[in-house]
Every structure is written in structure tokens, then in C-alpha cells.
């Protein structure tokens, strides 16, 4: 069968599966809609968290980014996994014991303030929308590349699917579809990686083959360092970013991960505190399977690509002899060749010898073709990319709808609505959010791609300190926490907006504060947040006794009930 038919088949079957699960697990109450009734087993929740967490960007782009950045790409690997240690040790168990539905719930109750609740709602909605637009775009891109329908049609199909199971099933439907999506996604990622590892190093585990040797006996990474230097790039295993920037970006991603509402909310869905801790561990296991494979894929793909384009003897490959994938992907604009020296040969390098433009996404998308894997593997990658994008989009949409129906309406504007009415509002909010996300996916504002990466900085500089202080510093009061959040997020947002939108020309290391790029500035924002919170607290007195008693009560597991709205 040809690739396109197979892709349709795989994507169609997985879609039918997701819808089937949604119908089977539809939500009947707000408790089920918001937190899946609080009855998700730890391992299943770990899997759902992993799918929720790993977006189209993790699946499609990450290996490609690492492939081009080498050692510098480690910031994503450590940053997006290390946050789970913080979640497991410092956040998840306590928030689960607290037993509410959302992050703004915690902030609002812990800091006894509707203003704090509203600020948290706004942060949550803003972070989630920027993120979800990118996912819808991802769905569209996968559709257009593998199934040859327009990006817009692809987004609309994706919207209909997400609409179905997010609106119908709420958290319960999303959780069990995410479990299925994780399986599809990880299978689609690992199968090509194993094939390529076998092909290049003879080792079945990409994580080990990564350190193995290629055909002529040279270690893969040594060969890659040699190639990189020869072609004018920085050594693959050394990188070129300044150390302070690597440090701050890693920290911003870690802390941001631990502060993202759609990740935190997953830990409200398990039955008890013990499971919240375990489930964070399982989530990281499932994430690590992909995250330890990605850097191996990155290195394999880079060696493969350089060898294909420049030829084994580094003289360049004649364009008419180029393998079919180069011509296939040329039509999508992901790879381009301009014969500058007129010798009819392609050449890839960092300096003036370079004749290629290569999009980093090609590293995962075209990988099966580069390694000449069978057609069904290519089709599998299509279904996997779709699963990655849909699962993350659904989790984010749920946060948005919960923020509106629960935090804004029930807990703030309309406290007297019944559970049934609240559920109806939640469904309506989810429906509206799907449409808005779809619109943003079809007409992406230019800044979406830029902003997604900064969602982490914003989460790191706002939510994380407020939650940590709320748990570990029981005397912290609302004045301290609120001013910390406001200062942290304002500083971070201003720095990012200045360098990314107002004066992008100045966005070079010489102009950065302490040499920290906008990607890493959230770490400084977080430190500021903590400092301001402590300072203001010193001046304004302790939190009331009843609040301190609540903090005492979330510090041990006994007596955790199901999550509730009261």
C-alpha cells in the first residue's frame, strides 16, 4: 500500500479509537468533568500526564532542535524532565491533599483573596491559549504533510475530534484518550528510532547506540564532532551558548514545567496523596522514554543528513543522484538547495560553502524516509504526531474551560449555580475555547510560535513561587504573594516583550541583563518574585490563623478525600 493510503488508515483508526473512548467515559458531574472523579490510577495518570505534557513540539521539533544545537539542546532535555522532580517533591502531594479542582482555587483560598484568584485565572488562561494555538497548528501541519489536505481543513478536522471528547468527556474522557494517545505516540517515536539505531550502530537501544560506533569503527559522537568542526559548526558535544544562559534557560523550563496549570491539574485526578507522588514518578518514566531517545535520534539524523548531502568523501552529492526524500520534502519547503558554485552538487556547512536551507522539523518527519524504512513506519509517524498534538490541546482546553466555569463563574461571579448548571457552563466554555483555538490555529498571530516558549518563563515567575510559599511558608500573607506574582510576571513579560517585539534588533548577548536571554529570564523573574514576597511579608504581618491551620493540614496525607468544590 502507498504511504498516503496507509496514513489515512492509521490516522482514521486512531481517531475512531479516541471517539469510542470519549463516548464510553463521558462525564456526568462537575467532579468527573474537572478531575475525572478523582479516581484515576497512578500509572494511568502518569501516562495521561506524559501525553498531556508532550506536545506536537516535543514529538516533531525537539529532536530536530537538538540536532542543530548539539550540547546546547540539553536545556530542553533537562529542563522539561527536571520539573517533574519539583512537582513530585514540592507540589503535587500537597496540592492533592488540598483537594480542589484548579490552581486558581489553591491560590485564591490559600491567599484568602478574590484578587489573587482572578490574577491566577488570567495567568492560567493566557498561558493555556498561547500554548493551544500552537497545538492546533501542529494538527494542521501533520494533516497537510501526510494526508495532503490544506492546513485549514486539517485544523477543522482536529477541532471536531477534540470538541467531541473534551466537551463530552471532560477530564474523564480526556484522561483515557490520553492514555491511548500516549501509546500511539511512543510507538510511533520508538519504532523508527530503533530501526535507525540498528542501521547505524548495530545497537537495538538508541540510548546505547548513541554512544556506540559507526560502520568504520569511529565512535558516533567523535565522528559528529569531527564533521561539525570540518564544516564550520561548533563541536556537537560542546555547544556555543554561554554557561550562564544555559543555566538560566534550564531553570526557567524546569520551574515553568512545575508551574503550568494543565500539568498540575493532572495530579488532582488521582485517588490520594500517595498516588499523586507515585504518579509523578510514572509520568517521568513515560516522558523519559521519549526524552532519552530524542537526543540519540538527533545525533543519528545529523550524521545521516550530512553524509547524504555532502557525500562520504565530503565533496558534495550530485543533485540528480540525491535520494527521493530530498526531492519529496523540497516540495513542502522544509529543505531547499541553491547551487551557488554551479557544480551541480549539494553541500551543507556553516560558512560560505553552504548551499542548503534545512528546516529542523524534517529530522523527525523525514527520518523514516532518510533511513529507508518501510511505508507503514512513515504512516505511523503521522498518527503519532497527531496524537501528540491532540492530547496536549485537549488538556489545555480543559484548563481554559474550568478556569471560566469554575474559577470565574462558580467561585466568583455566580456562586449560587447548581452543579448541573456549572457543568453546562463548563461544556459551553470548552466549546467556545475549541473554536477560538481553531481560529488561532488557522490564522496564527505572528507571535504564537515566539510566545509558546515563554509560557514557561511566565509560569515560572508567577505561579511557582506563590504555590511553593503557600505550602512551605505558612505565615506568608496575601500582600506578599500577590505583589511577588505581579512583580515577577511584569518583569518577565516586559523583558520578553522588549527583546522580542519592541526592539528585536537588540536581542543579542551584549544587551542582555547578566547575559541572560529572554528564554531564561523567567528564572530571574522567579527570584524577584520570591524576594518581593519575603520583603512585603516582613512589612505586613502574618497570614490569619485559620489559613495557617489549612497549611498545616495539607502537609500530611491522612484524611485526603475526593476533590471537592467546597
Amino acid at each position, binding site marked *: 500500500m502507498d504511504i498516503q493510503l496507509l496514513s489515512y488508515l492509521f490516522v482514521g483508526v486512531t481517531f475512531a479509537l479516541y471517539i469510542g473512548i470519549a463516548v464510553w467515559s463521558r462525564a456526568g458531574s462537575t467532579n468527573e468533568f474537572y478531575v475525572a472523579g478523582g479516581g484515576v490510577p497512578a500509572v494511568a495518570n502518569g501516562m495521561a500526564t506524559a501525553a498531556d505534557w508532550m506536545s506536537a513540539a516535543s514529538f516533531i521539533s525537539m529532536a530536530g532542535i*537538538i540536532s542543530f544545537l548539539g*550540547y546546547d*539542546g*540539553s536545556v530542553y*532535555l*533537562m529542563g522539561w*524532565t*527536571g520539573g*517533574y*522532580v519539583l512537582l*513530585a*517533591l*514540592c507540589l503535587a*502531594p500537597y496540592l492533592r491533599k488540598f483537594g480542589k479542582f484548579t490552581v486558581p482555587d489553591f491560590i485564591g483560598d490559600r491567599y484568602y483573596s478574590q484578587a489573587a484568584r482572578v490574577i491566577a485565572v488570567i495567568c492560567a488562561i493566557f498561558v493555556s491559549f498561547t500554548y493551544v494555538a500552537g497545538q492546533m497548528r501542529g494538527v494542521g501541519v501533520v494533516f497537510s504533510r501526510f494526508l495532503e489536505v490544506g492546513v485549514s481543513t486539517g485544523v477543522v478536522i482536529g477541532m471536531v475530534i477534540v470538541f467531541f471528547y473534551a466537551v463530552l468527556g471532560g477530564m474523564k474522557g480526556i484522561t483515557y484518550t490520553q492514555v491511548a494517545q500516549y501509546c500511539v505516540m511512543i510507538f510511533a517515536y520508538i519504532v523508527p528510532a530503533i530501526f535507525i539505531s540498528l542501521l547505524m550502530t548495530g545497537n537495538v537501544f538508541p*540510548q*546505547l547506540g*548513541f*554512544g*556506540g*560506533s559507526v560502520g568504520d569503527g569511529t*565512535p*558516533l*559522537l567523535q565522528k559528529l564532532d569531527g564533521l561539525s568542526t570540518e564544516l564550520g559548526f561548533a563541536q556537537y*558535544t*560542546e555547544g556555543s551558548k554561554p*554557561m550562564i544562559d*544555559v*543555566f538560566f534557560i*534550564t*531553570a526557567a523550563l*524546569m520551574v515553568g514545567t512545575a508551574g503550568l496549570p494543565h500539568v498540575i491539574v493532572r495530579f488532582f485526578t488521582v485517588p*490520594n*496523596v*500517595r498516588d499523586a*507522588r*507515585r504518579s*509523578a*514518578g510514572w509520568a*517521568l*518514566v513515560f516522558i*523519559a522514554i521519549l*526524552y*532519552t531517545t530524542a*537526543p540519540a535520534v538527533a545525533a543519528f539524523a545529523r550524521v545521516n543528513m550530512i553524509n547524504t548531502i555532502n557525500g562520504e568523501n565530503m565533496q558534495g552529492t550530485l543533485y540528480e543522484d540525491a535520494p527521493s526524500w530530498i526531492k519529496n520534502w523540497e516540495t513542502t519547503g522544509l529543505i531547499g538547495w541553491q547551487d551557488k558554485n554551479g557544480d551541480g552538487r549539494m553541500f551543507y556547512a556553516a560558512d560560505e560553502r553552504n548551499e542548503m536551507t534545512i528546516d529542523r522539523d524534517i529530522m523527525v518527519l523525514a527520518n523514516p524516509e532518510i533511513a529507508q524504512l518501510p511505508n507503514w513506519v512513515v504512516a505511523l509517524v503521522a498518527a503519532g504526531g497527531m496524537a501528540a498534538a491532540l492530547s496536549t490541546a485537549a488538556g489545555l482546553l480543559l484548563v481554559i474551560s474550568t478556569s471560566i466555569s469554575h474559577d470565574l463563574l462558580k467561585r466568583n461571579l455566580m456562586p449560587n449555580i447548581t452543579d448541573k448548571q456549572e457543568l453546562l457552563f463548563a461544556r459551553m466554555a470548552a466549546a467556545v475555547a475549541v473554536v477560538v483555538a481553531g481560529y488561532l490555529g488557522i490564522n496564527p498571530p505572528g507571535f504564537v510560535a515566539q510566545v509558546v516558549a515563554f509560557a514557561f518563563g511566565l509560569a515560572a515567575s508567577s505561579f511557582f513561587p506563590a504555590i511553593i510559599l503557600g505550602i*512551605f511558608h505558612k505565615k506568608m500573607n496575601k500582600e506578599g504573594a500577590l505583589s511577588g506574582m505581579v512583580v515577577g510576571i511584569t518583569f518577565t513579560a516586559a523583558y520578553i516583550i522588549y527583546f522580542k517585539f519592541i526592539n528585536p534588533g537588540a536581542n543579542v548577548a551584549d544587551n542582555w541583563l547578566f547575559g541572560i536571554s529572554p528564554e531564561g529570564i523567567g528564572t530571574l523573574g522567579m527570584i524577584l518574585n520570591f524576594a518581593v514576597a519575603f520583603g512585603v511579608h516582613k512589612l505586613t504581618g502574618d497570614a490569619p490563623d485559620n489559613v495557617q491551620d489549612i497549611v*498545616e493540614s495539607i*502537609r*500530611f*496525607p*491522612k*484524611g*485526603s478525600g475526593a476533590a471537592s468544590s467546597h
Partner: protein
Amino acid sequence: MSFESKEHAAKYWRENVRLMLTLLAIWFAVSYGAGILLVDVLNEIKFFGFKLGFWFAQQGAIYTFIVLIFVYVKKMNALDKKYNVHED
């Protein structure tokens, strides 16, 4: 109050925080330490075909993170039992 006494509550919390800080110290050491601050020094050492610092940054830190969480889970379950504040 689910603890036998205020002292028990305070002791439980102190032990919990000490465990957390110990594990976070390791968390910091493998990622920011071995993977970033000391990466150049460790890169002089070869480890199964990798430069060691590079391996920590792209593989080792992640494996350590997983171990840390499960050690925490196990130790905390024991601590909860010791102070009789575990769930049924």
C-alpha cells in the same frame, strides 16, 4: 489534629523537608552541576563512548530524576506510616 502531638507534627515536617532537600541537592548536582557547571571538566572523562559531562546533560540527569522520585515515594510512605498519617 491527626498527629499524636504538636511535637510529632513538627518532627514529621522536619524529616520530610530534610529528605526533600537532600534529594533536591542530588537533583541540582546531576543537572546544573554535572550537566552545566562542571561539564567541561567531566567531558575529559570517557564513559561508554560518551564524554561524561555531555552524557549527564542528555541522558544521565534524566535517569537520575526518575530514581529520585521513586526514592522519595518509598521514603515518604515509610515516614507517613511511622507517624501514623498515611492514608487507608
